[in-house]
């Protein structure tokens, strides 16, 4: 069972939530729940920093901080993607290949795949 949590937001934010919800084929409530889960999952000190940034930071400081958060999420997804990819392309190169052989294989495989494209 879930509960309803209500919050007051500006018209502008409400419109942004509605638009993003539509774009991602979710309800505005689902977007709000996702945002809350993310916020609550942050360590307390990070939430304090976020509040300080919101109230005291400049626009460019806020943008920089959000960029770093986005980068951290991108890196996490990249790591996950690479981990999944490790299980594929299994016959490409021997597991015992030296570093130099891997360098050479990368050039040959890239070139031959491009030629077939």
């Amino acid at each position: 069972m879930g509960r309803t949590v209500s919050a007051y937001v500006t018209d502008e934010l409400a419109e942004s939530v509605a638009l993003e919800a539509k774009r991602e084929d979710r309800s505005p409530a689902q977007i709000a729940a996702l945002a809350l889960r993310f916020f609550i999952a942050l360590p307390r000190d990070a939430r304090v920093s976020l509040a300080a940034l919101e109230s005291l930071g400049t626009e460019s400081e806020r943008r920089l901080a959000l960029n770093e958060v986005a980068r951290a999420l991108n890196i996490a997804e990249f790591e996950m993607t690479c981990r999944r990819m490790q299980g594929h392309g299994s016959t490409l190169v021997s597991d015992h290949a030296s570093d130099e052989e891997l360098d050479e294989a990368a050039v040959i495989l890239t070139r031959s795949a491009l030629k077939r494209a």
Partner: protein
Amino acid sequence: MRDFEIIVHGQTIRLCVDLNIWVRYLLGRRAGRVGPSAANAIVEAVQRGRSPAGPIQLIVSYTMLARLEDVLVRLSFQPGDASAFCSLMGAFARRGPSGIPPHMVLGGGTSPTAESRMLTYNPYDPKVVPPRADDEDGRVLDTAVAGQAHIIATFNFADFRSPNSQVLEAGRAQLYQAAHHNVLILHANKAAECLASGDFSWPIVGP
């Protein structure tokens, strides 16, 4: 003999990463090579947007991303993973210190490289068809020039030799000179060394 410095220490380095480095990164991971390697160092610098030499801005184009996705699928990686991998490369470019999204490079292929230069043939002999230009390197080079990259890092150093390039260090460093922009083409091992040391200077011989 004196030195000339191509990139001033601490400035944002605009780095164009050849497709074979991404492929090498994945091959290394598959082989369980998580330790230091040139490909790992370059990919990590791109991910973090920084290196000991200074901030790193990835320069990439939609053409390069589309080609890499094609290459990865042809190398038996899952299409969904290949697409996510390339889309994240675009994200790393946008998240970079200068926030440069992937470029849309139109035309291109105008920079002949060792591989793409047409061989001599007899135009009066209908049996001889001119070889199709290989534009793999051309697209990377075009992107680097269009995006005003300081460096192209590649494992395929030899194929970037052209009449417009000047060798700075045999097999490891050459300077490609376009009309309005020069690009340093570095072998991946040399690129990783330079990013670690911040030393981008080469000796000039002569007056």
